[in-house]
């Protein structure tokens, strides 16, 4: 069985779902014969035709709105943001139209919104952002962020089949760097379920996206039994998995690429404070980016992004308690 990349897994999920379900179709900028800025939709227009792989004008509010409308008549659209930063241009349509539709008048919005996310590729302030919390904080939207090809494939299937709006974040640094053999069967990864990727007893590290790989790297070099949890979904948040792990280890470190204030680490820390306070033997620590835009120049972007040594330092501090 051949290994496939994180990017291939997403392309495969899109193709498989279009094959399986005629109501699935794609919209986005330059996604047709060009195959998208990162070539995630490469070959799909050839396979399924221009009717089902639609190149749109540069109008994010329009293609998200059109996706909502198409979903009202039974379709399951998947829209691509060329870079996830541009999701800001469709913010109104997502939070006010899609996010409230089922609640207000019972009309579900089965759409999937996807796009390349995150930094470490010198993309600068507008091609590197982490917008997950804009939507995790906006009722009615599910947010997933896979870190492996297996999870990307299974979560994309889950999002497309889900009857509510889903935001699928694809880490662009991982696109071609992470490879593995994925299961052949038609599996899904349930939205809202975290995964224990490394078991341990002395400390819990909760993270997601590219930082999963950085944390695993750090853990390898530390002489301790550390549990690493990959959230996989930001909303719904798998509070149970985190609480259970902290009840065992009594120490929690949350690491994310996103900026600090209002990042998911704060919500996780508050949850532990409420639900596992008696189990803690040290304060919850978070390691995150600072509250700044993503800088362009390499030394500054590296400073901005959480580096392995920062994770190691925080982990050692907790282990010493």
């Amino acid at each position, binding site marked *: 069985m051949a290994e496939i990349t994180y990017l291939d897994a997403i392309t495969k999920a899109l193709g498989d779902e279009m094959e399986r379900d005629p*109501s699935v*179709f794609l919209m986005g900028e330059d996604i047709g014969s060009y195959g998208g800025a990162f070539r995630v939709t490469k070959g799909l227009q050839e396979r399924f035709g221009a*009717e*089902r792989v*639609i190149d*749109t*004008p540069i*109008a994010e*509010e*329009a*293609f*998200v*709105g*059109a*996706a*909502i*409308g*198409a*979903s*009202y*008549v*039974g*379709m399951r*659209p998947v829209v691509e943001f060329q870079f996830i930063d541009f999701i800001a241009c469709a913010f*109104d*349509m997502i939070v*006010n*139209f899609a996010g*409230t*539709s*089922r*609640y*207000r*008048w*019972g*009309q*579900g919005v089965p759409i999937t919104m996807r796009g390349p996310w995150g930094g470490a590729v010198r993309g600068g302030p507008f091609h590197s952002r982490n917008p997950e919390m804009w939507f995790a904080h906006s*009722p*009615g939207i*599910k947010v997933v962020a896979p870190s492996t090809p297996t999870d990307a494939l299974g979560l994309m299937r889950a999002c497309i089949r*889900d*009857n*509510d709006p889903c935001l699928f974040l694809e880490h662009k640094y991982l696109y071609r760097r992470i490879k593995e053999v994925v299961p052949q069967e038609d599996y899904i990864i349930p939205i*809202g379920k975290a995964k224990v990727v490394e078991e341990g007893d002395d400390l819990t590290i909760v993270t997601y996206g590219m930082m999963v790989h950085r944390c695993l790297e750090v853990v390898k070099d530390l002489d301790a039994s550390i549990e690493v949890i990959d959230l996989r979904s930001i909303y*719904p*948040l798998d*509070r149970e998995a985190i609480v259970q792990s902290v009840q065992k280890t009594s120490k929690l470190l949350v690491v994310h690429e996103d900026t600090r204030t209002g990042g998911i680490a704060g919500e996780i820390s508050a949850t532990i404070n*409420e*639900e596992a306070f008696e189990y803690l033997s040290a304060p919850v620590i978070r390691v995150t980016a600072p509250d700044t835009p993503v800088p362009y120049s390499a030394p500054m972007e590296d400073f901005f992004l959480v580096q392995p040594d920062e994770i190691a330092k925080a982990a050692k501090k907790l282990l010493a308690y």
Partner: protein
Amino acid sequence: MPPRTPKISKEQKLQMYHDLVLTRALDDRAQALYRQGKITGGLFSSLGQEAISIGAAHALEKEDYVAPMIRNSGVVLVRGHTARDIMTQYFARATSPTGGKDNSQHFGDVERTGVVSCISMLATLVPVMAGMALGARLKGETRVAMTFIGDGALSVGDFYEGMNFAAIQNLPLVVIIENNGYAYSTPTETQTLPKNLVDKGLAFGIKGKVGDGNDVTEVYRLTRQAVDAARAGKGPQLLEFKTFRIRGHAVHDPAEYVPPSVLESWKKKDPIERFETEFTEAERADVRSKVDETVEDAVRFADESPWPEGAEALRGVFEDDSIVPYTPWWEK
């Protein structure tokens, strides 16, 4: 050669008259109920511009989709929603189409009536309705999608994004510009420069038409031509109907900024008074008594309806209600 204008049967005219009178009666009654403190929140009036909703909605077929804006409650009546639906929405009761989750004209039923609920953010319906036409086409169906937009909402980017998308995709979308002179307190000439707002269609290669919004038969005829053209594959259509907002932006707004002479001149062009000359006194009396009965029933039903349970607020965000975290840990 001028386009063929569809004939309107006497029966349909009488139905339109009924729908106009019912729209206004519900509107008037809601204003009174607001003053009595029976209904709260924002209350928007369609007084004086009812002909656009009624004429346009009558031009659609049953299988078509339509998204009314806040002053288009007449549209939902034509599409098969009831006076009870409208009144229970105002009363915010458990029996309302949204179960009290949202107010006024914010409701719909895609399956049964083809009506899509608006949101308060203007122009968002243009891309959404384009998407409904697109979705239907992908399913191999031809269904016209229609929506309404005001002179103020034409300044919102979604209008341009949505029209351009619909034009590129050649979608059967009909957008009706309701030019009622004011966006809240801002007169149209302070909002935008073109004299005819329909000229904005030229940006998308669409040549629209302008009509008298206070003449229900003209609204019907022009809209019917646009709907037929859209259905025939001629792409999105744009119409502008000139009218005037007789009441303020919402019930709290006395609209003192409107020059009295302007208001008076428009009151003389009242769409119901102009249309009712087509009917006998007996026909009019019959419609009015039927409407009175409908309104009384709707108010009684809404007033007697139960309030929703507070905790109902937790339900319906997602298909699976258990997703929304709420129960404190000590109650788990």
